[in-house]
């Protein structure tokens, strides 16, 4: 068996090493080699589709080597219907982020190397089949992110970077404690996900609940669940735009992905917490949406809209039926694409205007029609217009949620309404109105930037119009997931 997953993990890492050895005299070569490695990673991750069997129930393309036998840790990788789409999303958004990094001029060597290390770490999180490895990669994402924010970020970058790391580490501590208790209780004392899961079944529901709460704090910071989201507005605003793309596009999904894995591991606790998770999801939906509406800063608006959109994911997961679960996973993909393209476009606009205040903009449709097209498309996708990926996700979640909770699910529609309010407000403010002198000299998207934006837009539309292949990819995992719970209702 060829080690595809290790190869995938190694490509960005190798890229980082190569970038580190290219002399600073050749910035173009540096950039090209980073983009080349990200592209190869994307191609390899897409190529995995050929070997991925959608009908197979369980981990595929698995690799397993003993790492430290005394600690019971393994180098174990594998993908299933939950992680494979996330892997593809990661490689895609990393490539987009690198393409959008043109304006980074200082310290480009370390910048590109850190970005590629970050890609490796994220891929590791999604592919790890051993909790120790998972935790390792989870923490490893913090290191490049800390430097990326604190070195290339905005005015308030130091506070943002520290804040981000402290929040995430604070959450990880609880996750680590839960992991250690689980390790202790597992019969053969390994960190392997499968053996820990079987060990967890023996615990009493009370203990399971405590352990789940530990994981929930760790992942809830990342997702983010509402009271734990304090790092998010600051980090998203202060981070350079390419990093914002990754933060919002993938880093948030790591939390949701971890929550899915935890729910598989501790189903009884999940059953007990189900209504509370749903309440948290509803609160996040409305809270994030209303605050997004209240923001003048475009990046903050997208950041808060992420809180709202991740509420859909949590809602879908907590409904515990296949339809809503499919909606949640689709929403993870859709939000990755939409938030990615919004941050990309806003970053490109900011490069040109040096303002993110929505009230400073006016009448861009005459000056920059391409910007207008892609921003409108992204914002419409953000509110889940039919024909975009968000619609499929929200519709599935709505149906699944209705099956579970009945009419309360109408709150989800409320949040869609609010998202329409800020989407149209933004479209109106950016593109219509009288022409203002400072906005009349902007240059439109360059062909290179156009490639990146249209790649994301095309994927969003493709997923919206023809979601079938991706749904088929995830069906087996989703039904297995919900079958764990349907027997307990």
């Amino acid at each position, binding site marked *: 068996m060829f080690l595809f997953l290790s190869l995938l993990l190694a490509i960005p890492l190798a890229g980082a090493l190569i970038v580190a050895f290219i002399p600073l005299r050749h910035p173009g070569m540096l950039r090209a080699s980073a983009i080349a490695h990200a592209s190869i990673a994307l191609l390899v991750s897409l190529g995995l589709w050929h070997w991925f069997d959608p009908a197979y129930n369980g981990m595929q393309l698995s690799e397993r080597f003993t790492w430290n036998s005394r600690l019971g840790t393994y180098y174990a990788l594998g993908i299933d219907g939950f992680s494979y789409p996330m892997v593809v999303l990661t490689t895609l958004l990393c490539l987009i982020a690198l393409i959008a990094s043109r304006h980074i001029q200082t310290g480009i060597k370390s910048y590109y190397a850190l970005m590629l290390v970050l890609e490796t770490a994220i891929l590791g999180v999604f592919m790890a089949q051993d909790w120790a490895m998972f935790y390792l990669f989870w923490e490893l994402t913090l290191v490049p992110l800390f430097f990326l924010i604190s070195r290339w970020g905005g005015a308030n970058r130091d506070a943002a970077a520290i*804040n981000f790391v402290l929040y995430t580490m604070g959450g990880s501590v609880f996750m680590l404690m839960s992991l250690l208790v689980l390790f202790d209780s597992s019969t053969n004392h390994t960190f392997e996900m499968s053996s820990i899961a079987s060990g967890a079944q023996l615990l009493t529901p009370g203990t399971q609940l405590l352990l789940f709460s530990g994981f929930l704090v760790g992942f809830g910071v990342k997702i983010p669940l509402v009271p734990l989201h304090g790092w998010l507005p600051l980090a998203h605003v202060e981070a350079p735009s390419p990093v914002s793309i990754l933060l919002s596009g993938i880093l948030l999904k790591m939390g949701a992905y971890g929550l899915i894995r935890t729910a598989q591991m501790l189903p009884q606790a999940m059953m007990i917490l189900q209504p509370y998770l749903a309440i948290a999801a509803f609160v996040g939906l409305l809270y994030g949406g209303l*605050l997004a509406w*209240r923001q003048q800063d475009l990046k903050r608006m997208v950041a808060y809209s992420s809180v709202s959109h991740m509420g859909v994911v949590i809602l879908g997961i907590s409904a515990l039926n296949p339809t809503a679960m499919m909606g949640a996973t689709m929403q993870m993909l859709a939000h990755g694409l939409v938030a990615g393209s919004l941050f990309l476009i806003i970053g490109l606009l900011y490069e040109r205007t040096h303002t993110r205040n929505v009230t400073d903009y006016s009448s861009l449709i005459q000056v920059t029609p391409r910007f207008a097209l892609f921003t409108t498309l992204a914002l419409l996708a953000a509110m889940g217009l039919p024909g975009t990926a968000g619609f499929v996700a929200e519709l599935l979640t709505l149906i699944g949620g209705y099956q579970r909770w009945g009419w309360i699910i109408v709150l989800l529609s409320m949040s869609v309404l609010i998202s329409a309010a800020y989407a149209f407000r933004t479209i109106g403010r950016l593109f219509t109105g009288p022409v203002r002198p400072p906005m009349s000299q902007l240059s439109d998207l360059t062909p290179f930037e156009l490639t990146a934006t249209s790649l994301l837009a095309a994927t969003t539309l493709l997923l919206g119009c023809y979601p079938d292949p991706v749904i088929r990819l995830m069906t087996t995992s989703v039904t297995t997931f919900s079958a764990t719970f349907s027997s307990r209702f």
Partner: protein
Amino acid sequence: MANLAPWLAILLPWTTAFYLAMERVWLPVWHESREKRIGRVTLGTAFLALISLMMGDGYALIHGAPGTVVSGTWFISGPYLVPLALSLDGLGLALATIVAWISLLTIRFSIPYMHRETGFLRFFLILNLFIGAMQLIVLAGNAVLIFVGWEIAGVSSFLLIGYAFHRTTASRNANRAFITNRFGDAGLLFGIFSAFSWCGGVGWDQMAQSAPQVETLGATLLGVGFMTAALAKSAQIPFSPWIARAMDGPTPSSAIFYGSLMVHAGVVLTLRLQPILMQTPSVLHAIAVIGLLTALYGWVTALGQSDVKSSLIFATLSQTGLMFLWCGLGWFSLAAWHMGLHACFRAWQFLHAPSLMDDLDRPSPNAPHWLTRWRPLHTAVLHRFWLEHLGDAMMVAPTLKLANDIQVFEHRVVTPLTGLPAHANAISTLAQWQEQQSGSIPPMGYAVERSTGIAGRMIQGLASTLYAFEENMILKGGGSGLMEVLHIIGKRLMLIDSLLSQPRYLILMIAMTFVIIL
């Protein structure tokens, strides 16, 4: 064969209309040579329609009229069934043949008459649309199908009155005629509804069968509904004024619409409803009175007209009034014969009207002596008995006032409550923008959260509360607050550390340790 021919008569003109529409869309560049082709196509299809109807007639003569023929179901919803039925009895077939014949002649007349008109194609398109609709009116086997023809005929009438749409009067007259006709349409819909609920179906044959059992109330409601439609379409009193305004269209259209065909649609409907109307003497009496009044009105008014089309149309009114009178008196067959003959005669008169002045060797006759001598009547005739002003005072003015009041209510009460965009001081016109530029309207605020209406205000309040919570509790408390706490803890620890490094505290610590151990 006999069933197919009438459908051909309805669909052939519509096919031609469709063809003309396609030609309009795909060949936007006009060339005069196209007139010839359009003329040939239109004439050819009209001729085909006539031939097929004649063959149908021949079949009916030999084998007897087929009566109501059902060719399928248009739609069915619960108890409501609308079949695609044509009533191919003597009346239907005869009238359809007359319609086909008159339309063929009118088309032949129009081709040279409309030569080099800018709206040549448009005229024939609408004319074909109308011919199909008229065929549907005379052939329809139930009230819903007649309604279809009724509406299409109404719309094409509107379009042809406004043929010269660049003239304000033409557009106004078209509107007036169409809106008056809408009264009748409402009546027809009410009649259809009543037919469903009282007779259990909308077919003429169904209504005839159930007529003896229908209660007087039902029959009266049904009769009132359908007769409102009939009176409006045939321009009887009080609906008469629209038809004089309809003279604004090209003369061939006046001939076919108001001189000979559409004006008789009301009579056709009345004839179809004969069995039901026989159950309601009150409605019949009302028709008779209205018919008589219209006949007198048309006759007297026609005498006072100075232009040929106006006098012709009022003469038409007096004749249709007589037809309604015959119906009201129960002489339905007489009304049918009268209608057929009048249609042919009046079509000829109208088509002849443009050349009438050439043929006359003396000026047009003045109003008769006895009329001019009776001043009050003459004044009334010249003002067409103030029917239009009456209508304005009774219907238009109150409607306008009501609309005004509603507008005020909307502006003062509903808009502030709901926060409709009208209130959101958005600029919708250039004039508003200029006013804003000159400073008469304050510019819109640049705050992002700007909402109106009760729901909007509530959401805005909620959002502001959440925003304050977010700023003070989550961001300050969690973000920078966290940093401050860390700083303070760090300072305290530094202090303790520095204290511990001093010898006296070190010795104290060691001493304390010994004490604890011992």
